[in-house]
Structure formats: structure tokens, C-alpha cells
């Protein structure tokens, strides 16, 4: 192995050990375990739900006008909606939608933002400033607002909502990757690599980019919860999922007309959102506290 490969390899080993440390801290904390459990349960629901749901056809939209707006019972665990469809089944189907859409938003935003930030941080000066200026302008928008504008322009659909959210979310990851890249760029082994004559492009890919992965990964986990709420919010406004999709946000939206008299309609989908987001937040919180070196020193008061 070349010298700088060796150095890079030991950097990666160090990161591997840090990762193990984080995993250990997560597993020993009851709150984060609960979060992890929740996420796993919902993942299972996302995969298995549609096969287990008592009224799958209704979940996909088939109405049943004989059983409109019934309260929760043995037949309909969470009650029925105004078209007589079983809310429980619809929620089971909706898990897949929520997870897939939020994961897509975060994943694509990361895929766009991370390399951009790494490049901006490494190349600095003109290219870096340009990228960061553009990023700052996007960041000047309150998060959902830009997504709202884009979704309204493109028209209401789940795909457009996801696209709109990606457009407004990538800058966050760019900024994160940028600051990490700046720090990494100044580390001695990067200087050494450059001195040996390694081409910039390779340095970015081999050294800068991996360094940005860790903080972004943490942030992304935390963001999944927000992404779910963001997608639900857009659906709630009518800019996301359209009927008859069993999207949780859409259900709460349709539910708001009925729910004062029929409490179960909006409560359960919203509860599903709450629990899933709670899971991500619990886990993310624990990870964040595990990583933050400043929180582990002495305590006096």
C-alpha cells in the first residue's frame, strides 16, 4: 500500500472503532432501544402490513357505503372513514408510503448535498464560495415554505411533494458536509497526500467524502422523523398524496372535516405519525448524545 493509503486506512479504522462505540452506547440506553424497536416494528409493518390487513381492498380505496363512519370496534379496529373504509387497514398500508417517501427525500437530498458540500469545502475559494452562496440562499427559506412553492407549481401529487422536499432539503446536508470538509482539508494527512501528488479528485473521494459521512449519517437519521412530518404536512395541505392513497397525512386532512364528531378518524393516523417519528427521534437523540464529546466530561453541580 502507498503511504497515504496506509494513513487513510488507519483513519478508517479509527472511524470503525468510533462506530462500534456509538453502537454500544445506543444499545445500553433504554430510550434509544425503544426508538430502535419502534422503527423495526414499523419496518415490519411496511413490509408485511398489506398482507395482514383485514380489509386490503378498502385500504387501496374501495368504498363500503354500508359502514360509513363507524367507531372503533372488533370489526374495525380503528373505525371507518366517510367512505366506509377500515382505517386500521389503511394505516397499515400507509406505513410503507411514509417510510418510502421520507427515506427518498432524505436519501436523495444527501446524495446531492454531501458531494456538493465536500467539493465546496475542499476546493474552497471561488468554487467553494459560489456553491455555499447558492446554498445559503436556499437555506434562507423556512423549510416547508420553498417545498410548498415548488409543490404548488408542479401540482399536487406524492411524487411532486417528494421532489419539492428534496429541493428544499439538500442545502442542509451541503452545509454540514462543507464544514466537515473544511476541517478535514486542513488535517495533516490530506496535506501529505497533496504533497505526494495525489490528484484532487481522488483526495475528495477517498478522504474528504468519507469524513463527511459520519455527521451526515447522524443528521439524516434525525431528519427522517422531520421528513415524515414534512411529507404529512404537504399532504395535509393537499399538495402531496391525493385520494384515495392511504397516506397518513392525507387521512388526517380528510379527517379534519369529520373528526370533531368522529374522533377516531384523524386521531389514529396522527398517532401513527407520532409514534414512528418518536422512534426516529429517540434513536437520533441517543446517537447524537453518544457522539458529542463535549457531553461526556465532568459534572459539578
Amino acid at each position: 500500500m502507498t503511504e497515504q493509503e496506509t494513513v487513510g486506512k488507519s483513519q478508517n479504522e479509527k472511524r470503525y472503532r468510533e462506530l462500534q462505540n456509538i453502537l454500544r452506547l445506543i444499545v445500553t440506553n433504554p430510550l434509544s432501544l425503544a426508538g430502535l424497536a419502534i422503527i423495526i416494528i414499523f419496518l415490519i409493518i411496511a413490509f408485511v402490513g398489506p398482507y395482514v390487513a383485514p380489509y386490503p381492498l378498502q385500504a387501496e380505496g374501495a368504498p363500503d357505503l354500508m359502514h360509513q363512519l363507524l367507531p372503533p370496534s372488533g370489526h374495525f379496529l380503528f373505525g371507518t372513514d366517510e367512505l366506509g373504509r377500515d382505517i386500521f387497514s389503511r394505516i397499515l398500508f400507509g406505513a410503507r408510503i411514509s417510510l418510502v417517501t421520507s427515506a427518498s427525500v432524505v436519501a436523495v437530498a444527501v446524495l446531492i448535498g454531501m458531494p456538493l458540500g465536500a467539493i465546496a469545502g475542499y476546493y474552497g475559494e471561488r468554487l467553494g464560495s459560489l456553491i455555499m452562496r447558492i446554498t445559503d440562499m436556499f437555506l434562507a427559506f423556512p423549510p416547508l415554505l420553498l417545498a410548498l412553492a415548488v409543490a404548488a407549481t408542479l401540482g399536487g401529487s406524492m411524487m411532486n411533494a417528494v421532489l419539492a422536499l428534496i429541493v428544499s432539503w439538500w442545502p442542509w446536508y451541503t452545509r454540514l458536509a462543507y464544514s466537515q470538509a473544511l476541517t478535514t482539508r486542513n488535517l495533516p494527512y490530506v496535506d501529505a497526500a497533496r504533497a505526494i501528488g495525489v490528484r484532487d479528485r481522488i483526495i475528495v473521494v477517498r478522504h474528504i467524502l468519507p469524513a463527511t459521512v459520519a455527521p451526515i449519517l447522524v443528521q439524516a437519521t434525525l431528519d427522517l422523523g422531520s421528513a415524515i412530518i414534512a411529507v404529512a404536512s404537504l399532504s395535509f395541505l393537499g399538495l402531496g398524496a391525493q385520494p384515495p392513497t392511504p397516506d397518513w397525512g392525507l387521512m388526517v386532512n380528510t379527517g379534519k372535516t369529520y373528526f370533531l364528531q368522529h374522533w377516531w378518524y384523524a386521531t389514529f393516523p396522527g398517532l401513527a405519525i407520532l409514534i414512528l417519528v418518536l422512534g426516529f427521534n429517540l434513536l437520533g437523540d441517543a446517537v447524537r448524545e453518544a457522539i458529542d464529546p463535549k457531553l461526556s466530561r465532568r459534572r459539578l453541580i
Partner: protein
Amino acid sequence: MSVEDLVVHFHTIDGIVYALNGVGFNIRKGEVLGLVGETGCGKTATSLAVLRLLPENAEVVSGHITFEGRDLLTESLDKVAEIRGRRISMIFQDPASSLNPVFKIGTQLIDVLKIHHPNENNEDLLKIAEEKLAMTELPDPRSVMSLYPHELSGGMQQRVIMAVALSSSPSLVIADEPTTALDVTIQAQLLALLKKLKEALGLSVLLITHNLGLVRELCDRVAIMYAGSIVEVASVHNIFQNPLHPYTRGLLSSVVTGRLRGRTLHHIPGMVPSLINPPPGCRFNPRCQYAISTCRGERPELVETEPSHLVACYNIPKEPWWRI
């Protein structure tokens, strides 16, 4: 104040650190005691234990710290809090980080004064504050009061800290490496100041340092510490003239003095032991050229081998120390 048999453990992720292993010494009224040792030997831990400022993962296993008739380790935390700043004060190592950066000097000083002089009104407190700052030879105390810590130089910051610490005329001041973070020239100035204040206020001082030159300048007596216990206590004169403990002798030989001119500097072989897995008995024995089998058994106690000269060693070397 006297410290007896202080045993302190720290609970860390890597295991229990047996930091203090039966520390004992005393400070008499009006004297300056130097606590000397390498980084990590437990000097700071000892000093923090006095005012109960040890971090949460510290466990005081046993020992007594007697001050003005009370055992500070068993008193309620409230009583100890009353003593802090009032009867016993502490000065720390890095002045820049020891002052709260978002408050003006005046605010911090007056808040402390308010606690210790509850009966004064605000105008009087202002005057007293200025007096205290003037006492530590700060130029223009009034404008210093309206400055923020980062607007002062390191030396001035430490003077401010001294002023605050001495503002209620405590009887004991613990100074933990007060000049280590500062330039050598500033060190000299602050030393002189400390000497003057000690005379003027009749302070007893526990001076923690690893700088032997400082010790020589300022201290009346010296206690040498190694890996969690005191190994030798003597007057400054005797410590430098006639060090008895092998560690002290090694320490002195690794410092450049006139006596050693022309010879190679000695260094103590080996490294300071890990305090998670300390060696049995006398903790210095793995590196000691005079070690005998007893040294690996019970830890040696401090014994008055010569008048007012205590050593904790089973096998005190006979030859003069500069012959090593």
C-alpha cells in the same frame, strides 16, 4: 488545615482509577506549602477534594480533611459551600477559561462580594470591588470592571481571579499551577504579587506546581507527591539540600542546577504507572534503583526520619543525592 489518609477513586469507562492512595499532609497557619509532582500524580484531585469540587464520577473512599475544627469531607455540602470563597479560596490554572466570558469583570466580582458581604449596599460594594482589584496591582481598576474577560491579557486575568479569590480575606488559598499557562515574565510578576499578598493578608497557601524554581522562591515547606501519595515532606531548604526519597532525588537530578554543572542530566527510567492498575506497595518501586522486597508489600507510611523531615520509604539511600 490537615489532610489525613485521603483515598479517592474515579469511576471511568476504562475502569476504576485509584487516583489518591492515602494522601496526608498539613498546612500551618501563615505558611506556604508547595505540593510538587508530575502531571497526573493527583495534586489537582487532592485540591479539589478539599472544597468538594470533585466531579461526579469521583468517590471519596476514606480520609479526613480537617479545617478550623471541622472535617470538610463529612460536613454537609451547604456548610462547605459557605466556606468556599470565604475561608478557603481556590485559584486555577488557565485564567482565560476560568472567567465567565459573557459577563463583565465588575459583575462577576460584585456578585461574589454580595455573597460574602451581605450587609453592604451597592455603592459600598463598588468601592470594595475597586479596592480588591487595586490590591492585585491592576492599573485603573474602575475601567477593568467594565471590561469583558477576553479583553484582558492573561496576566491581568489571573490578577482579577486573585482579587476575587482573596476578596473576603480567606485564611487558606489553594493555588493550582497559577502561572503555568502564562509567560515567564508574567510568572515572575505574579509570584512577587503572591508573596506580597501573603505577607499582607497573613494567608496560608497550598501552592500546587511542578516547577521547582517556583517552589524555591515562594514556599516554606514542600510536599512531594508521586502517583497518588505523598512521598516526602520537608522544609524548602532541606528538600533541596538533602532529599531523601529516591523519587525526589531523581527529580532534583533531572533539573539543571549549579551543582550538576558539567554532568549529564539524569532521568528517572520508566514511566509513571497507570493508576487503573497501579503497582503494589510503594508505587515508585518499579522504577526505583533502591527497591527491596518490602517495597512491593505494604505501602510505606510517612516517617519522621530527621527532625521535621518526613519520608515514605523503606530503604532511604545513604549516599549524597548528587552522586547518582
